[in-house]
């Protein structure tokens, strides 16, 4: 297929021909890669997002791209599709070196993308969205009738039967995703990149998506499939590339790779002996738990998660990206609207569900995204520390500087927060010190339960060890700690038990001798995929309690 065949002409371009022309390509390009990326490197402000990554896409094959948060998946996709310029390396498309400066260039060369978030124009009609940028014209004007006819016919093949003149936003999210997919494929792509395409789809729509993908590959298109759902990957993909910390740590066929090995590759499991854990008193199982959650459900994210957390206990919450770890923690403190479920603190049920109510009850959450949800960047270290405690440090609404200083001094010393002064802007501190500031914000409230979502993410090794030691210390002092971490070592070393989530539901609980990285990986690679059925999740929830 030559370059000039791309239907990109603005005037009177023929209706995008169906993949019939691509038939011959299958035979032609059995082995030759359609896209080969070599030594791709990209950094932002001195931080390497990608280092020396190779990716080879062959026609007619689905290539899985996997990795945890921050592994570089999105950056790689954006480099491939012209959103980011690459710093080093080269991209060859059908044997010719190419550099895409804009997404449009990539699209015209036959590299299409379906993003995780639908990136179409919600107010425009479905048909217009489908044809955006390459509308059929007649005598210089839009040929609306043809546009609508073609759009309706096209969408039917994707299981979307709708009035194509309606604005896109009136469609369900799944249907919107299908429109985005139809649009991407309609461009006669040689490569279609799908970034977590199923994250907002119902099971039936997932099936449609799969058949579309199979249809594409049958016509010789190469598909890059990004997902963290193991079942989908193994059902659909031929090859896999695993990214970790910006590097491709594994590439090859997917089928021979055992699930737990794949998970191990993603999480960077190193074979270390399980670290000795400080012997902690086993909480009396009959005692009233500090925190009891039952049947927490958040639409599409969490299905019937429940657990008991005792004083002096560190409960680990394990799971891959998208397993509902963070959502569970947020649902506990009421930051995420839960559809169902109850939360009890010291046996008293939280009636009002809001972060403010949770804080008052002594349940606090250290969020995963420190910058977006943790620090208040424009305020000083002092003000960030006392933020939640302000009412307690005030008299008749007037803040008392003396009381503030006492608290700030205590916790800056105790957590060894390194700042020029308490008046330094918190945004100017290192990640580790910012994290300590956030911990200080909570600890000065003397909470009962601490929910820690990835407390050591993005902080340096020294601070990481300090935070881990602090968690042990806090539990020893009688706090109940819920620890979320995607690092199996950290999770199993730090937690007394580990509750494992998958697709938003509990699938296993590791206790006693099973709290090891190996057992955790085995649990993470759990085969079955619980559906949305409530009975099933209830059973599993009960199984997970004890």
């Amino acid at each position, binding site marked *: 297929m030559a370059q000039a065949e791309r239907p990109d002409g603005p005037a009177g371009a023929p209706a995008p021909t169906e993949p019939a022309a691509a038939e011959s390509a299958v035979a032609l390009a059995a082995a030759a890669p359609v896209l080969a990326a070599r030594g791709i490197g990209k950094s*932002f*402000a001195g*931080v390497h*997002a990608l280092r020396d990554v190779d990716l080879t896409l062959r026609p007619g094959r689905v290539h899985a791209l996997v990795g945890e948060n921050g592994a570089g998946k999105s950056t790689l996709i954006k480099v491939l599709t012209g959103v*980011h310029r690459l710093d080093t390396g080269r991209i060859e498309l059908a044997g010719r070196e190419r550099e895409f400066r804009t997404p449009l260039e990539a699209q015209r060369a036959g590299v299409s993308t379906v993003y995780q978030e639908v990136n179409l124009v919600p107010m425009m009609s479905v048909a217009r969205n489908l044809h955006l940028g390459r509308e059929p014209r007649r005598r210089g004007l839009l040929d609306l009738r043809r546009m609508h006819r073609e759009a309706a016919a096209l969408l039917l093949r994707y299981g979307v039967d709708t009035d194509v003149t309606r604005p896109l936003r009136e469609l369900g999210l799944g249907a919107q995703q299908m429109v985005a997919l139809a649009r991407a494929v309609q461009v006669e792509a040689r490569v279609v990149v799908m970034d977590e395409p199923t994250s907002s789809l119902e099971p039936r729509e997932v099936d449609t998506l799969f058949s579309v993908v199979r249809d594409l590959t049958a016509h010789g298109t190469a598909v890059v499939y990004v997902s963290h759902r193991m079942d989908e990957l193994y059902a659909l993909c031929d090859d896999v590339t695993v990214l970790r910390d910006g590097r491709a740590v594994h590439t090859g066929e997917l089928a021979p790779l055992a699930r737990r090995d794949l998970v191990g590759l993603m999480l960077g499991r190193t074979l270390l002996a399980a670290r000795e854990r400080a012997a902690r008193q086993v909480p009396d199982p009959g005692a009233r738990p500090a925190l009891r959650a039952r049947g927490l459900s958040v639409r599409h994210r969490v299905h019937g998660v429940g657990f008991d957390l005792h004083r002096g206990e560190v409960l680990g919450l394990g799971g891959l990206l998208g397993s509902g770890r963070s959502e569970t923690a947020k649902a506990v*403190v009421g*930051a995420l609207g839960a559809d169902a479920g109850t939360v009890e603190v010291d046996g008293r049920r939280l009636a009002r569900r809001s*972060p*403010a109510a*949770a*804080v*008052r009850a002594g349940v*606090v*959450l250290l*969020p995963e995204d420190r*910058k*977006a*949800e*943790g*620090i*208040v*960047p*424009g*305020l000083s270290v002092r*003000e960030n520390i006392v*933020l*939640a405690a*302000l*009412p307690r440090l*005030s008299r008749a*609404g*007037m*803040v008392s500087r003396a009381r503030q200083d006492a608290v700030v001094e205590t916790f800056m010393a105790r957590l060894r927060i390194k700042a020029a002064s308490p008046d330094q802007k918190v*945004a*100017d501190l290192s990640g580790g010190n910012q994290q300590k500031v956030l911990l200080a*914000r909570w600890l000065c409230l003397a909470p009962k339960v601490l929910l820690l979502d990835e407390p050591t993410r993005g902080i340096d090794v020294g601070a990481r060890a300090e935070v881990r030691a602090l968690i042990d210390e806090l539990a020893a002092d009688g706090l109940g700690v819920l620890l979320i971490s995607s690092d199996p070592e950290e999770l199993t070393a730090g937690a007394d038990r580990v509750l494992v989530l998958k697709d938003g539901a509990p699938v296993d609980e590791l206790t006693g001798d099973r709290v090891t990285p190996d057992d955790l990986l085995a649990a993470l690679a759990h085969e079955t995929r619980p559906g949305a059925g409530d009975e099933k999740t209830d059973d599993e929830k009960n199984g997970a309690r004890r």
Partner: protein
Amino acid sequence: MSVLAPAGVLRGRAPALRLLRRYGVYLALGVLFLAAVLLDAGFLSAGNVRIQLFQVAPTLLVALGMALVIGTEGIDLSVGAVIALAAAVIPLYIGWGLPVALLVAVALGALGGLAGGAMVAFARVQPIVATLALMIGLRGLASLVNGASAKPVTDRALLTLGSDAFLGVPLTAWLAAACVALTAVLVHRTTFGRQLVAVGDNRRAARLAGLPVRRVLLTVYLLSGVLAALAGAVIVGHGAEADPANQGRNIELDAITAVVVGGTPLAGGSVRVLGTVAGALFMQLTAAVLTQHDVPASLTKIVEAVVICAAVYASQERGTR
């Protein structure tokens, strides 16, 4: 990651530039004042100073409330309409005495503010849309209450408030100064003020930290309404007439200008009370100097536009996060 990169780059800027950004409005005000005096020594005359203060007082009152709202990353377009509403009800209740009339006007301003705040805090309507709707509605209410015609006001107490002076400084300026002091204390020394700034800077973090985000938003719009109602009383007293159809028109724009020129970023997270005072004075003096030197009104407007653009440009760079 890429989104955060520019912040790190900006942070390394020379401290001198930072100082200029931070205190530039005071410098500009000083230079303008000096220039005005040098051009015409009569500028310093008691009479002229008093006129300037009379004119700036209501704008400043409104701007204080606006600064609080802008600190939460909001905006309040309804303040002019609140003034119109105050102008509409004051003649109706002034027979009961000034305190009653003031109380009614302020209560209505508070209610209007609450309505706007509720739309923003609970219905999550964008502030500009919520207060735009409120502005239209309150203007309608004002003309419904008291028709479209101006009514003379003869109440001695109200006229005194509007036009008399104490120690050579208009009472309205004293009132504005008191409100400035109260607002400064509110922002810097109270729990509420610190929560307000945190809500404006990072609302998600503030919510997760257990701050009463909705209450803060409600209160901020309420205060803005109260201050606007006070400004309404001041305007009616100074003009000796209540003219709901015209009083308070476009004052929301003057107030926003004062806040922005004063260095409060529209992105929220910071309230500069003294800066707002300087911003209001600066805009007042600019107009006064140009007018007194017979620069045509049309040109004066253009100069004001340039000042606003410069201020917004500066605040944008500062606000990059």
